[in-house]
């Protein structure tokens, strides 16, 4: 069936209640009287952000936030963005094969996890094929990342409908913070070889730039029978960023990336992935109480999977927003427009119909944060208006899978309750977030002519709930030794509504362990040596019959001089091979890996 262009409707009411009590974090409070009581040392520890910075809006969201810093990434020995995201205990991260990852927050994990919003420097990374993320092409120079903010829970007003369960916000450093030449090279057993070159310089008194190039080759994973799955791949990427403080009140940023990669696959031709993107941003300070920000970007991705499908996707996006502080009000409003042009080359095995789709979105939002009691109680009220038109996809089973996004497919609705606690006492920092979410109209797979098993259509015939708790703790054993831990309990239940013919019970929607545990240890040793360890335990994924597993990564570093850093990293050290995701026949097993790395800075 050929679906038509159709305006969809969404009514989403998210109520979130977050209670945080944090005496030691009091210095962050923005009250003037509190600021005036601080010592000079304390004043110098306050982080300031320009009001138009997109990153900063996240910090106000009433959700559980974890921040992965540059230091965390470096110490972990992570070599890709998904590996770095393992550092956030509030995410469910599973490696599927050498190239693909399933990442989500608060359950609902699948290769096509569609409830998470992922931003890289303000650019939404996204494929409209399943409203999800192709993680293999979301690469950045990890040493240029300033921080990654991970929010689990309702992303609320400021973010799109995709932010139902969380937001991942990757923020790279400004060009002025990456001066000089940095060279990195290394190789090992799984990550067979990699190299990076980055140079940062100045273009004028207030204009800075950096350029970079990188490449890597990764070994294949294993089939369940222990034979090699031919999914080894390699990729190259380059890019630049220019930051210009044009005047006291105007800031401009221009940045872009270009990448190209190849991967093997079973009995078929090579998979080709490539793409490019360009972002321009302007920030303008209207007054001390008001900022305006505008950004536009272009993102092109090409993906050719011989025997399955090919896709050329162009995304054009323009956003404008203003923030104003008015007495006790903190108002943010904005408008946005996005155009997606998607061309798909179908195969006998899988077809997305129609093969050419052009979709556009219009968004407008306004949010007001009102301080009811200064420093104590804030209310955030917001409204988002979104208009989008979309057409369908078809996949026919048995030689031709037929998958239709029918006009009856509405956006899912969620009602969420949250309560949290944050406590700092001496060397301890504890935070606890608990949540309950009810989902209405979850994606279901319906038989159009029951009891015939086919054709199937995608509808909103299921309801569900999820609940759990996220606990994070940091303990500073001594100046040289720091321990960090995270523990998550999560339950997801999904059931079909009366009249629904779905028999999957949400098995296509959520493949999530009931619990996961992380312990990270960072130890500074004498003689410029350092040892980091990251242990993780993930419970079984019941609906994939995937057993629980525990794994350990470790990094040993020698930094003889500030400009040179030599390290050896072991990944997944506890087992020869283990699986993290997938049904028993489809899953791939990931092998233990070791690599060595040298980094020097001039």
């Amino acid at each position, binding site marked *: 069936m050929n679906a038509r262009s159709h305006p*969809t*409707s*969404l*009514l*989403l*009411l*998210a*109520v979130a*209640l*977050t209670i*945080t*009590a*944090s005496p030691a*974090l*009091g210095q*962050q*409070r*923005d009250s*003037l009287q509190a*600021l*005036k009581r*601080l010592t*000079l*040392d304390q*004043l*110098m*520890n*306050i*982080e*300031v*952000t320009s009001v138009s910075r997109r990153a*900063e809006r996240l*910090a*106000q*969201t*009433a959700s559980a936030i974890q921040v992965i810093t540059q230091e965390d990434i470096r110490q972990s020995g992570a070599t890709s963005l998904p590996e770095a995201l393992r550092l956030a205990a509030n995410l469910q991260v599973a490696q599927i094969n050498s190239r693909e990852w399933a990442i989500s927050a608060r359950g609902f994990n699948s290769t096509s996890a569609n409830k998470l919003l992922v931003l890289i420097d303000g650019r939404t990374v996204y494929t409209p094929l399943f409203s999800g993320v192709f993680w293999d092409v979301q690469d950045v120079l990890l040493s240029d990342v300033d921080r990654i903010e991970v929010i689990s829970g*309702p992303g*609320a007003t400021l973010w799109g409908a995709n932010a139902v369960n969380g937001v991942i916000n990757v923020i790279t450093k400004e060009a002025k913070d990456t001066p000089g030449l940095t060279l990195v090279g290394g190789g090992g057993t799984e990550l067979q070889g990699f190299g990076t070159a980055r140079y940062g310089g100045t273009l004028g*008194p*207030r204009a800075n730039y950096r350029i970079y190039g990188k490449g890597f080759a990764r070994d294949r994973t294993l089939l369940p029978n222990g034979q090699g799955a031919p999914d080894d791949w390699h990729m190259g990427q380059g890019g630049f960023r220019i930051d210009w403080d044009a*005047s*006291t009140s105007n800031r401009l940023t221009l940045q872009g990336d270009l990448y190209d990669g190849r991967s093997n696959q079973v009995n078929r031709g090579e998979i080709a992935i490539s793409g490019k993107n360009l972002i321009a941003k302007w920030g303008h*300070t209207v*007054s*001390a*109480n008001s900022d305006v920000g505008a950004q536009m970007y272009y993102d092109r991705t090409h993906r050719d999977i011989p025997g399955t499908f090919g896709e050329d996707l162009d995304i054009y996006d323009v956003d404008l927003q203003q923030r104003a502080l008015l007495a006790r009000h903190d108002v943010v409003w904005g408008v946005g427009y996005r155009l997606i042009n998607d061309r798909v080359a179908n195969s006998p095995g899988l077809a997305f119909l129609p093969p050419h789709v052009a979709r556009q979105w219009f968004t407008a939002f306004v949010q007001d*944060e009102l301080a009811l009691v200064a420093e*104590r*109680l*804030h*209310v*955030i*009220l*917001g*409204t*988002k*208006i*979104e*208009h989008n038109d979309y057409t369908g996809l078809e996949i026919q089973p048995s030689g031709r899978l037929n998958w239709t996004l029918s006009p009856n497919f509405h*956006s899912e609705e969620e009602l969420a309750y949250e309560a949290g606690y944050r406590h700092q006492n001496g060397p301890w920092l504890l935070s606890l977030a608990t949540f309950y979410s009810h989902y209405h109209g979850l994606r279901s797979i319906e038989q159009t002519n029951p009891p015939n098993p086919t054709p199937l259509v995608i509808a909103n015939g299921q309801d569900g709930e999820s609940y759990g708790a996220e606990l994070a703790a940091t303990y500073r054993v001594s100046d040289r030794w720091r321990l960090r831990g995270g523990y998550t309990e999560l339950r997801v239940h999904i059931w079909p509504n009366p009249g629904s013919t779905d028999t999957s019970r949400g098995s296509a929607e959520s493949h999530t362990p009931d619990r996961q545990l992380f312990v990270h240890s960072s130890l500074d040793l004498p003689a410029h040596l350092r040892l980091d360890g990251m242990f993780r335990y993930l419970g079984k994924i019941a609906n994939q019959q995937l057993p629980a597993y525990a794994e350990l990564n470790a990094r040993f570093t020698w930094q003889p001089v500030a400009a040179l850093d030599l390290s050896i990293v072991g990944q997944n050290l506890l087992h020869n091979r283990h699986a993290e995701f997938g049904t028993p026949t489809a899953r791939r097993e990931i092998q233990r890996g070791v690599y060595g790395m040298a980094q020097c800075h001039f």
Partner: protein
Amino acid sequence: MALMSSLLLVQGESPRTSEYQLKAVFLFNFVQFVDWPPSAPQDSQPPPPLLIGILGDDPFGTFLDETVRGERLGARSIQVRRYRRIADIEACNILFISRSESERVPEILSAVKNRPVLTVSDGDEFASQGGIIQFFTDKNRIRIRINLDAAEAANLTISSKLLRVAEVVRTPKR
């Protein structure tokens, strides 16, 4: 058409401080950590206010006025003045030079040369140009650079408490 409304109730910290709110509080602190030479005895009652001047586009909005409102240094009240031209500058104690004036910093500094005026700016290179206190930002935190030669030339004494948290530089020899 889609309508999404949300109500979020937050209790606790809002980890957000505006850059110029913080800089206003720093200026207020400078009043307490800098000693001006005693001025000629005056019979006037009450004593003259301590003046903080802003030259050029005012980046503070109402922050600086709110910060010093009702505050006193001893018997002296603290007042904020705004100047457009160099010629407008009166006998202020602290002069904040806006980044809008960055092109003519040398001219401004020579106009207040050898007067007990604590010059402050967040313009690039301000301290090495001969300004006394320069704000700069490092990892989203406000830092202070103090040119001790310039402070001494202005006959100002800066408390060691302030010097301890600052990066101290000297005027480059020409």
